[in-house]
């Protein structure tokens, strides 16, 4: 692994959940890590904010204290949808040293999981996450491509 390094993946994910406007049993997620000696919690917030503001175009964001067994400190990112209120975008944190040290990594490693579908809801002005998998051909033909 190169240091500094940034790595990410975007894949389809599955979970048993109650399906509603912001939850599907199937969704797209990006998970990523950034590794460098200089990284801090401030940087983690910086990266998360970049996703929310620059990719999703969110105007109001908020960070919540959060818990994951493998990161500490941990944080949740939410953004305010103009009509739907606060929606959770991401869970993130800095990997616990108990996790990275056995792998020979002494540098801080920032990690996140971001619901891309929810970013897309903001960007496209969609009010129901299920519409990202729309079967409406007319809408697809007329909708602006990002």
């Amino acid at each position, binding site marked *: 692994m190169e240091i500094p390094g940034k790595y990410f993946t975007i894949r389809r994910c599955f979970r048993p959940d109650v399906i509603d406007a912001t939850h599907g049993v199937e969704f797209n997620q990006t998970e990523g890590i950034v590794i460098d000696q200089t990284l801090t919690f401030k940087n983690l*917030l910086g990266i998360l904010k970049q996703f929310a503001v620059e990719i999703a175009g969110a105007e109001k964001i908020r960070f919540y204290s959060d*818990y994951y067994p493998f990161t500490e400190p941990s944080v949740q990112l939410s953004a305010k949808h103009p009509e739907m209120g606060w929606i959770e975008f991401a869970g993130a944190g800095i990997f*616990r040293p108990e996790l990275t040290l056995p792998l020979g990594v002494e540098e801080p490693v920032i990690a996140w999981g971001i619901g891309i579908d929810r970013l897309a809801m903001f960007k496209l002005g969609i009010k129901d996450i299920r519409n990202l998998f729309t079967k409406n051909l007319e809408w697809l033909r007329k909708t602006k491509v990002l």
Partner: protein
Amino acid sequence: MPTIDVSYKDLCKLIGRPISHTELQEKAVLFAKGEIDAIEGDMLKIDIKDTNRPDLWSVEGVAREIAGRYGRPGLPDYKTAKSDVKVTIDPKLKNIRPYTVCAVVKNLSITPEILSQMIQLQEKVAGTYGRNRKEVAIGVYDLHKITPPIRFTTTKPEGIKFVPLEFAREMTPKQILKIHPKGKEFAHLLEDNEEYPIFIDNADEVLSMPPIINSDYTGKVTEKTKDIFIECSGFNLKFLIPALNVIVSALAERGGQIETVEVHMPGGKKLVTPDLTPKKTSVQTGFVNKLSGLNLNEKEICRLLEQARYRTALKGKTIELQYPAYRQDIMHPVDVVEDAIISYGYNKIEPVVPQLATVGSQTAREKFSDTVSQIMTGLGSQEIMSYILTSKANLFEKMNKPQEQVVEIENIVSSNWCVFRNALLPELLEFLSQNKHVEYPQKIFEIGDTVLINQNRKTKTEDMRRISMATSGNTAGYEQVASDLDSLLQNLGIKYRLKNTSHPSFIRGRTASVIINNRIAGIIGEINPLVLEKWDLEKPVAGFELDLGLIFELL
């Protein structure tokens, strides 16, 4: 993640000052890793995100955490006195339920609110932290109905009878497991044993049969109860001790006076519980700043940690810390740093994008998928995206195909999403079937993953990237899709040939296998009218499906 119900008035009273809903939502509740999920009148539903902090799963715990940041910082000072209650553990419990830790809490003035919080905390701790009572079962009793010393021993399933909570008649342990709702719910935790665990006092009055049910006489706590006896039983002191500490610390916040109980273990060992002596750790001020990115001086860090309910003592660059016995989650200085920055306030920290010089690129496979997508769009096709989860009806029955082995989901949410697709074409037909009112011709494609069974893989499954296209309209036919297929493969620089084949989803004589490098890489043809009928499609459809993984490897 535990969700707890708390009274807003009660919360403010415990914090020691009123806090507006907005301030609670945007600031205060974040100190307890909470998020307000709903407000209904006086009742708040709070999601507590930390599944490793059972001390936060009650209004007392949430208030204690918030109060630290609202004028009541520092280590909570819980004193314990000595009670005259003793408990002995029978060696016969060794393989059944070998441990218990206990406490006495006196001078409680139990209001309905306190009672409901006690029950909620007990349920959350035994349920979430105690793995649904397997690791931790908790019993709370009216101390004055008990004659100490108490024996933690065993009974035969047909043995000691008692009246279980909320019942009016005596039952044997076996009957309780069969008839009582809690007995039925938790029978699986006991029924393999030849004897069952039981708490019984010196007057032979039963307290409870853990982890199932209390006795209706001793184990019923009401608003009239002043003094209580608490026991936690299970297999591992590592879980039992924090569970007991969490419960008694919450009651101490209500003014309860904690008293210790002597637990005599088999082999002569004696345990005095609860032990609320603060635990110790330390953190370097430099480490706090290095991890957080903040620039705090020693005094500021101490103040933030005091707000998080630590006791601090500065020794040079080291902060010596004491923290409450109800916390078992602090394993490393990173845990302390998080507490400090939660006190500081996540939303007051300035987000800074790191300036790192790295070169990024897509993987070749993803780039290839994008290229294919661009070519298809250039050929006038609309890209669609559908779910990977589908149904056997869509994959087989509606495609006029015999059933094949597919990867299935064991605990399905809906019958519409119960298997992983092994082909894309059914999704395209479903799409077309829902757009019959839209202008024709229609030309659509999808690039996506299918999941196949592959016994050679560790997971026995394999993801396969594919492309499928379909066109529908009065003149849709083999020649059109063959022309698109030709353009796509020529653009990709792939040599291929078509070989007449038959397939139940397609029309005989209008179907071909796509052969690349002597391997079957896909299929092309006109959709069988039988299939069209099943999808309720009225216009002809032609299409193809290709294995993109195979093509990528040839590039």
